[in-house]
């Protein structure tokens, strides 16, 4: 059993008075690719926002390499080596493609990823590097978002629904690039609605249902029936 790089213990999350997560327990092991699946509104994005610090929780509910970060500022957490590819890409419209990547590199951590390596991974971006980031196609924007996250040389990278709104052929291409991205010891959490893709690329999977963990298991061992039950909350 490898060491846990990220541990969630009894994580609760609230939007005002509305509770979105109920006592979530979750571990990400060093170097593994973890999938989190669940229906819309199950709490997946809330989970990632809690981890990245955009939502404040109790200190011990989120631990990164043993350090309690539940109440830390998002920019501090980013400096520690957590990066996110946000849902809907959320590129900076006022910045060009290259500037988006450069600002990703603001967190100046040591590692293999730099502008050159990102351009090697996604050559089309180098062609369009001076263009306004929002003038690119959906798939290309997703590449920028991924590159932006990689530029900080994170230890844990989180992908929030990267296939959303993209054509199947683009999704396939991006997922093909995933091993190249995550190889080299980087841990990854992939939040997905596309269950097949999520299981294919991960070693373990959690399923969220209405803010609670309804299933945990090895990606190659869980059955369709287990998933369906956990996904929809049918007894």
């Amino acid at each position, binding site marked *: 059993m490898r060491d846990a790089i990220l541990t969630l213990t009894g994580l609760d999350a609230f939007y005002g008075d509305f509770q979105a997560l109920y006592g979530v327990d979750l571990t990400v092991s060093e170097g593994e690719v973890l999938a989190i699946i669940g229906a819309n509104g199950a709490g997946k994005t809330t989970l990632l926002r809690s981890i990245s610090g955009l939502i404040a929780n109790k200190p011990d509910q989120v631990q990164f390499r043993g350090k309690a970060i539940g109440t830390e500022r998002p920019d501090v957490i980013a400096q520690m080596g957590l990066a996110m590819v*946000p849902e809907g890409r*959320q590129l900076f419209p006022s910045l060009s493609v290259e500037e988006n990547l450069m*600002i990703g590199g603001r967190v100046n951590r040591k590692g293999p990823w730099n502008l050159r390596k990102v351009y090697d991974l996604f050559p089309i971006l180098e062609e369009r590097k001076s263009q306004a980031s929002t003038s690119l196609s959906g798939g290309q924007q997703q590449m920028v978002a991924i590159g932006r996250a990689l530029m900080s040389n994170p230890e844990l990278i989180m992908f929030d629904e990267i296939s959303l709104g993209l054509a199947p052929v683009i999704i396939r291409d991006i997922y093909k690039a995933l091993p190249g991205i995550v190889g080299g010891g980087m841990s990854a959490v992939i939040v997905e609605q596309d269950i097949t893709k999520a299981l294919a690329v991960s070693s373990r999977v959690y399923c969220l249902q209405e803010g609670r963990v309804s299933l945990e298991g090895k990606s190659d061992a869980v059955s369709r029936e287990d998933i369906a039950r956990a996904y929809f909350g049918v007894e």
Partner: protein
Amino acid sequence: MDFVNAVVQGTLLGGLYALFAAGLSLIFGVMRLVNIAHGDLIVLAAYLGLTTTVALGVHPLVALIVVVPAMAGIGYVLQRAVLNHTLGDDILPPLLVTFGLSVIIQNALLEGYSADPQKMDAGALETASVALGPLSLGVLPLLTFAIAVAVIAGLQWTFYRTPLGRAFRATSDNQDIAQLMGLNKRHVFGLAMALALAVTAVAGILLGIRTSFDPSVGGGRLIFGFEAVIIGGLGNLWGTLVGGVILGVAQTVGATINPGWQLLAGHIAFLVILAVRPNGLFPRISG
């Protein structure tokens, strides 16, 4: 000839107005905040310049060395201690807090300096002039205009060519994701306000050399800056320069028709533009 002279003088005056406006425009661009106390901060800078020139016995332009960092520091602290807490979707808190700030600054200046009009002495600079054909251009207005152009060019360069500028643009685009990029948004906003007040310091010193000032003139300066921003179009610093020039020309031309109409002419020009082009002449963002 009178008319041409008025236009030229008005253009140069526009440089000063653009300086009033630049800080206002910057802050609105980065954090969508409009600082009602902006004009009073210009006046504060003028008073700081006055005290510096008196205490150190230096030329007002030399006082910039002291006043610019001082105002930048004030801006950073003000933003982090007070104004950061007003940011959000509601427009009332920043408006009312900066309004309260305006009253406090005005009365603090009254307490400290009395209501007597003051002016800084820049010596020969104030009366020196340069001949351009049949026109005689004051060195000070020329210098002011040149400084305005330089400041705006500098701000543009900062915004579009430096990591700090990238940080400003990113934070203004999307505060949450900017934080994921390792940007401490409270710090970024503090730096933006520091930069804006540094520009305000320059504006204040130049104002204090050019005319006499007292604690109550802040409101008028805010209005000039605001009119320059609206005429030029939101989110466009060069547009703000054009806006300042248009305002300045309207005022000086109005003054040649009737000295008592100077201010009114400026306001009318503003209202006409507002009626015909509500988004200004070169808008980049919407209000």
